[in-house]
């Protein structure tokens, strides 16, 4: 692993002198490989290495930490700087109901995360109402209805004449107002950031509903593409937060760093399983440890 590799790099350096350009060069190469293997984007790695180099130059080798521990400490600090320490909460609207849009690429975990968010909200003194505006995927709306029954939280099913995403979402908001539900969670269809028509659909949805949260749901195993898709969703919609799913696997999750880097938006929640209580608030130090392996 990385700390073992760095220990080897610095074993000739124990307790004497500074971290110099030469010995840092080898260490930085190891760190670069580790981050790329963890799926951090090429350009984000470049910036990170640069800032680590800056910080490390001329640092006295303290006797308390070994040089490799010291370098890792600097790498960790720079990564935590990027990830931020945002609190995992949702921004509420001034007037209920609060609207939350759940968006992202196909299969990333939006529908499941919508159920998890509903449960989390209900455990935190809110009364959520879910609605699916996925009119494309076979049995998508059914999927959310089954989830609603499982977790005993309401799903707006939609009247027969409500056939478009905007109609369904608006009707759900009316339903929330009439029944005193204070948050509407809108599960949207998976889509590609390069699909103009479907990205336009999301823009229209945003315009019609005025959501206070647009959550981008991203798969923890996403590779270099994480930057492209997150950047595009953010440019076109303005996302307000990220949910990283499937962190119960062994993907290192470097995409999280890339997404945060390119959108500047906070990582709010982490999905750690298929059950509806499998949602954790975001812990930056845990995500960093995992990326570093």
């Amino acid at each position: 692993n990385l700390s073992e590799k760095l220990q080897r790099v610095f074993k000739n350096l124990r307790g004497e002198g500074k971290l110099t350009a030469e010995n840092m060069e080898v260490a930085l190469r190891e760190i670069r490989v580790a981050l790329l293997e963890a799926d951090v984007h090429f350009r984000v790695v470049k910036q990170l290495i640069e800032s680590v180099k800056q910080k490390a130059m001329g640092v006295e080798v303290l006797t308390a930490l070994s040089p490799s521990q010291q370098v890792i400490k600097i790498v960790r600090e720079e990564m935590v700087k990027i990830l931020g320490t945002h609190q995992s909460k949702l921004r509420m609207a001034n007037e209920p109901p609060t609207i939350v849009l759940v968006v992202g690429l196909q299969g990333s975990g939006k529908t499941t995360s919508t159920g998890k968010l509903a449960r989390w909200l209900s455990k935190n003194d809110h009364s959520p109402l879910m609605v699916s505006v996925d009119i494309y995927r076979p049995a998508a709306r059914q999927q959310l209805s089954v989830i609603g029954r499982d977790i005993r939280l309401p799903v707006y099913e939609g009247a027969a004449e409500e056939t478009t995403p905007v109609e369904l979402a608006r009707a759900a908001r009316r339903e929330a107002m009439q029944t005193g539900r204070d948050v509407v969670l809108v599960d949207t269809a998976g889509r590609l950031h390069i699909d103009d028509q479907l990205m336009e659909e999301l823009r229209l949805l945003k315009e019609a509903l005025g959501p206070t949260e647009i959550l981008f749901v991203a798969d923890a195993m996403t590779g270099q593409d994480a930057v492209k898709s997150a950047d595009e969703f953010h440019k076109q919609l303005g996302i307000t937060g990220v949910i990283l799913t499937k962190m119960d696997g062994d993907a290192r999750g470097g995409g999280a760093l890339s997404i945060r880097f390119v959108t500047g938006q906070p990582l709010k929640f982490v999905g750690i399983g298929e059950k509806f209580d499998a949602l954790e608030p975001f812990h930056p130090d845990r995500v960093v440890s995992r990326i570093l392996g």
Partner: protein
Amino acid sequence: LQGRKEIDADLLDELEYALITADVGVRTATEILETIRQRVDRKLVADAAEVKSLIRQHLLEVLQATERPPAEVGEPPEVVLVVGVNGSGKTTTIGKLASRYRAGNRSVLLCAADTFRAAAIEQLEIWGQRTGVEVIRQQPGSDPSAVLFDALQAAKARRIDYVIVDTAGRLHTKSNLMAELEKMRRTAGRVIPGSPHEVLLVLDATTGQNGLEQARKFTESSGVTGIVLAKLDGTAKGGIVVAIARELNLPIRYIGVGEKVDDLLPFDAEKFIESLFA
């Protein structure tokens, strides 16, 4: 990469950027570029165009080494088991495959062995309706191996040509779920000796380096025989299949290029490599 003529550090940097951002992986990219660098040092390469074509050729050889026709199946049914991590595109791929097999005038039966996820059975049933193919199913929560058993018995009795089995998405790190797949494979072999004849791992093209570990673990527990690379209509390049080809020698059977029934194409290595550098 277009206008560059001489071989310089910038060219190699650009090629490294292209390979890594295509998810080929830093180790694989480094090995490829190291071989190129050695040939350049020994003056065996004339210009940038030749460097690019060398890399393309190398990648092509890696992918073509895995190509082999699917196993010959003596008598019907041929059993295709579809596996992969959550959300990769399995159920949709099965709908597309059903349509493809039917177009070849073959009889097809689908098996709804994802008895776990909400509305998974209904999702497959809609694909069955769309393609005019029957779906064998049981209640949600039933044992996937039991549904598989039913489907294979039915296929045998009716002399169906193909049975395609949908399984629940599962992370390869969950040993109980991987054991469930092993049990399904054994069940299949008992009802139809020699089956499953094809085990397709559906891999999401946006997957990074974890794709290699997925392929390893799924091969261990379910004997993967081929890959379907789904969602290649996005901007992700799916370069992880190069590392998978090298290490596990798995052929890519199809690519998924959209959400509609016809959005499945046979894998074309040359086109794929072309797009890695696009």
